[in-house]
Every structure is written in structure tokens, then in C-alpha cells.
């Protein structure tokens, strides 16, 4: 039991923290020694979705401007899935063309691990926001700002290491990824619209046939 606990601690806290502080060594371990686990990445994503839901409902009254009646769990979960899915696919498709060494699975794991600072700071920060006054709220905002910054940092270093890129090429890859994400969203919307019109057309024909009978 104690060993198992130590293993979980190592997987979920110690190793991600090591990556955060030593990005080059850490991501090298993650890639070459297969220390990064898919399960951990998925759990981190689930936790991030949970954090978003909790923030919506339980963020301190003084800073929470969201109407609790508008909370939609499925929407929050789907938006996380969508963002992560889009990013990973877009990054993979871009980096294969840019001679990136990372595999699809590795990009996914890196994205999951990058959420680590957000989770480790976000949950205690969420609790803290309930105990602050209006004048002390900037501390909470700063804390969350740091969390988001660290997440961005980890994602950037992860992509850099996993594909064995230089700094300039990583920036380029990120820009290309965002562009391809936008293209994918555009195509998706186009597809939805077409399907919708197509379905409307079919139903109209069926309706018409029914009336003519």
C-alpha cells in the first residue's frame, strides 16, 4: 500500500514537478525513458475539466461574475475535450510536415502534463478565493495568472523537446498550429451547416411526399 502510494505520488506530483523545474531533462525522460504515462495525462485533463466546473460554481463570491444558473457541465467538459483534441491534432499534423520527432501519443501526453501547474495551483487557489476580501482579490488573480503562465511555459518547452526543435522553430510551429486549428474549426462549422441543410432538405421532401399522398 505504501509503495503504491509512493508510486502515485511519484507519477502525479514528483515527476511533473521535476519536468516543470528541469524542462529539458524532464521531457527527455518523458520521451526516451517512457516515464510519461497516458493515464496521468488523461487524469490531468479530467481534473482540469473539473476545475473549470468548480470555478464556475464555487469561485469566491467577490470575484465570480458568472450566473450559476447558466452552468452547463457538459459544455465545460466538451470545451476542454475540444480544445485539447484540436490542439493535439493540429500540432501533430503541422509538426509531421515540419520534421518533428514527436508522435501523436507523445504530443497528447505533453499537453496533459502541461496542465499540471494549473491543477496544482488552481484547486488551492479556488479554495483561497473564498477567504479573501475585495482588496485582497488581486492576489488570487496573480496566482491564477502565474498558473496559466506556467502551463504555457510547460506546453512550450514540451513541444520544443518532444519534436527536438530550436526556439525559433517552436514559435513557428505554434503559430502554424493555431492557424490549422482555425482552419479545422472553419471546416467543422461548414460541414455542420451543410449537413443541417441537407437534413432539412430531406425532411422537406418527406413532408411533401406525405402531404401529396
Amino acid at each position, binding site marked *: 500500500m505504501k509503495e503504491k502510494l509512493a508510486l502515485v505520488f511519484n507519477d502525479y506530483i514528483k515527476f511533473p514537478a521535476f519536468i516543470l523545474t528541469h524542462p529539458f531533462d524532464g521531457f527527455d525522460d518523458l520521451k526516451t525513458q517512457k516515464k510519461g504515462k497516458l493515464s496521468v495525462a488523461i487524469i490531468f485533463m479530467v481534473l482540469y475539466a473539473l476545475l473549470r466546473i468548480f470555478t464556475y460554481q464555487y469561485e469566491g*463570491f*467577490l470575484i465570480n461574475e458568472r*450566473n450559476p*444558473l447558466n452552468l452547463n457541465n457538459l459544455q465545460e467538459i466538451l470545451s476542454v475535450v475540444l480544445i485539447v483534441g484540436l490542439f493535439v491534432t493540429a500540432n501533430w499534423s503541422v509538426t509531421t510536415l515540419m520534421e518533428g520527432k514527436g508522435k501523436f501519443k507523445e504530443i497528447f501526453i505533453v499537453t496533459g502534463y502541461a496542465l499540471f501547474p494549473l491543477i496544482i495551483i488552481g484547486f488551492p487557489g479556488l479554495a483561497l478565493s473564498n*477567504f479573501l*476580501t*475585495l*482588496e485582497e482579490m488581486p492576489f488570487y488573480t496573480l496566482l491564477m495568472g502565474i498558473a496559466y503562465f506556467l502551463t504555457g511555459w510547460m506546453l512550450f518547452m514540451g513541444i520544443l523537446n518532444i519534436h527536438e526543435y530550436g526556439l525559433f522553430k517552436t514559435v513557428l510551429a505554434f503559430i502554424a498550429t493555431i492557424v490549422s486549428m482555425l482552419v479545422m474549426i472553419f471546416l467543422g462549422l461548414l460541414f455542420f451547416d451543410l449537413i443541417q441543410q441537407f437534413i432539412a432538405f430531406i425532411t422537406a421532401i418527406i413532408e411533401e411526399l406525405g402531404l401529396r399522398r
Partner: protein
Amino acid sequence: MKLFVWISLLLTLPVNFTVARYNYSYYGDVIHSAPGFTFAQYFNATTLGLNVNNQFTQPEDLIVYGDQIYIVTSGDSALYIINDRFELQLRKTSFDLSAELETQFIEEGKVVAPQTLNKPRGIDVKDTGIYIADTDNKRILKLNFDLEIVMIVDSIDDVTFESVEFEPAKITTDSTGRMYVVASNIYEGILELDTDGSFNRYTGVNPITLTPLEIFQRQFMTEEQISKLERYLPTEYTNVNMSDKNFIYSTSLPSANNDSNMIQLINPKGIDVLKRNGYHIPKGDIQFVVGMNNYVIDGPSRLVDVALYKDGIYTVLDTKRSRLFTYDSEGNLLYINGDAGNQSDRFSEGVALDYLKDRLVVLDRQLNQVIVYEHTEFGNKVNEAIGLYERGEFEAAAVIWEEVLTLNTNYEIAYNGIGKYYLRTGEFDKAIEFFAVGKDKFYYSKAFKQYRNQIIKDNFGYIIGAILLIPIGITTYRVVKKVRKGDELE
């Protein structure tokens, strides 16, 4: 259960919306609310005993002075005085000159004759006299209470009026007799005329501010292009009303850049000092259909008049949707009344309103009638609680707020009122609860700070103890462990 109630309320909203028994919640949702006014009475030409045709048509402005209502009409260009039992006391279309003005006229070689009105659109009555904006005669008449003309203002000594004709539309005066005039096609602000009718200055001027992007764009434009751009005109005032402290309440038309200051309180220095501490900025309806639509009324409210009640409570009139919005001095939306329609208890084109003691009179230009409203029990209680709070009687106010809540549970302002009472008595935990429901972040923060301090103060010993004991405990545990390990090694 609570959620269910909310949802069912939201679902029935379209039905409730048509009769306008609503208010806006903190989140800007339309929620069910009790109305503050109820129909009491109406009067028109028939009830006033005016049987001749074309009398009391197109009334334009109304003002209450003492217990008399003064109305000017543009259909028959007359002044009406009506008493508080809504009986006609006087109808007058032409006015004699006073002895002083007569001698002045003779000196200047003008014809001495009774003066008639031509489509007057504004009136104000103060202790200093009766002021009528005689619009189509392009002049302002000042009458004394014998209804003799004591002063005629027909020319304004300002460059603007070399190209634009002086067409006074609305008028208000301060306690010394200075006149504040809203004139057509004047964008400089509200005209301030001195007691003798000479031009003083423009007040309530709203400078136009361009966004950085607009300034940037203008850098690359030629003069011609700029002249073809949509012109940014400053606020166009629709009405002015002087408070007893000589501050001007004004309403203005909605435009691209005055969304937040459609209602203004202009101090003697000419600066807008209206408090906007409510959930939403006072501007009539907060949610409305935007864009072109032929089937519903779209766009923001078109506020045309403001009436002042006691304790800083004021009511504005939206002529577009025939609604009355009542605010308190802090800018909280208290209650909304809206009765659009052609029946006798409704109005279809409100143009002016004023308080006659506790009753509200609304002038309808299209139906040529005046609707008299009185407060409902709910409205009375709300006003009373606000009055008590203004006078510092917080406990009495809290009791009334409780009663308001039994009439309308959705009323968020009432929760804040009770919360403020608990904050004063030092029951911070209760105060927090009420402020959380009332969504008052500023006072919640204040109460919470006190509450937190209280808890820390009460448990100071334990906290210090924990801070000292835990590290000491951990270190001793480690030392003991080390010592034991050392023992084993030896």
C-alpha cells in the same frame, strides 16, 4: 426545488413580459416583480368639462407646483391649470403685458397687445414665476402668478444662434430664477440664461471621446473622407428638471456613445454627478432587441422626462415602450411600470410626468389625457424603507425591508437593506448571508473582513498554538526517529 422555481419563472417570462411586471436581477435577467404603481384616475377634455372641439389637444408638458398641475398644449396652444381634485381652474391662450413691460414696450416703440402662444412645448413653475417655452414663437415667456407677462426672451446673444434659430423646447429654473433651456438643434448642451434673460453659458456639455483606433484611422484619412464619416454628435437632451438643491436631472436620447449617461444629474459646475451604484446603469430597459425588426419595438429606451420624488427617488418615462422606471438616489432600479395601450388606464405616448404629492401624473400626447398613478403597497413600502435608510434609521428600514420581501421574494435590494442593518449591529455572519443573496460585493467584502477578523480574534490562541506546535512536533518526531535509527545502527 429552488432551481425548479427559477426555471418555471423563466419559462413563464414571455407571458409576464407583455404586462411588464418585471425587474432586472443582478445578472441582468428579467425576473418577476411587483409593480410600484397602480392606476388611480385619469382626466381628459371631457372630464374637465371642455366641450368645445380642439381643446386640450396634444398636451406637451406638465409640471406640478404646490397642489396645482400646469399643462401646456400645442394643439390649441393654451395653458391649463388643474387643481389636485383634477378640476379645470383656468384655460388661457393670450396673456396681457404687465405694467412694467408695457412701459418698456412703449419706450421701444413696439405694439402693445396681448401675446398668444404658438405651439408651446415646455413649462416650468417656481416661486419666481411661470416660465413657458413658446416654441414656434421662438421665445420664452415669463409670467407672474396674475398671469401677466413680465419678461420675454426672444434673442440669445451667442454665436450659435447666428445660424440656428432659437427654438426652446423644455425649460427648468433654479431657485433664483436662472433658466435652463433645452433648445432644438443645439448640441452644445443645456442653455443657461440669467435671471434677466441674458445668455450665461452652456452647461452639461459632454465632450466626445474617440477611441485610439478611431484616432489612428483618422490619421490616414483625407479631409473629405472625415467629413463623410458618421458625425459624432454630443448628447441631445430631451428634458431637464431642477431638484430643490439646484441640481439638474436631465434625460437624453440614446446614441452611440451615451449608453451610460442617458440620465444625468448635472451639478452647478456642469458636471454629471449621478450615482450609478446599482446593479445596472440607470438607462431604462437593459435588455432589448437590437437591430432592424418590423414586428417588435427595438433599441434602447427613449427617455423623455424625469420626475423627482422625496428621498432622492426619481422616475423616468420611456416613451418608446410606455414604461416608467423608478430609481433611488444610489441608482438602484426600484420598480418598473408599463402600461402601453389605448384604454383609459394606459398611455400610448407619454411625454411628461411629475409627482403630485404621492401620486404620479403622466401626460399622454396621443390620447390627449392624463393618467394618475398611486403607489401600490409594495411601492409604498420600498419608498418608506429607502426614506428610513436615508435618514439613518437602519433598524426601522430593515423591518420594512422584511415586509417588502414577503411581497416580493425576488427583490434583491431588500436583502441588501437588511444586510446593512446586520452589518451595523455587528452580526457579520448574518450580514454576509444577506449580501450574498443581494449580490452587493462592496458591502459583502466589508462584512466578510469583519467576520474573518472576529473568527481570528476568537481563536487566536488555537491558531498560534497550531503554528508553534506543528513544526515543533514534526522536528521532535524526526529527531526521535533519527535517534532510534542511530540506536539500531550501533
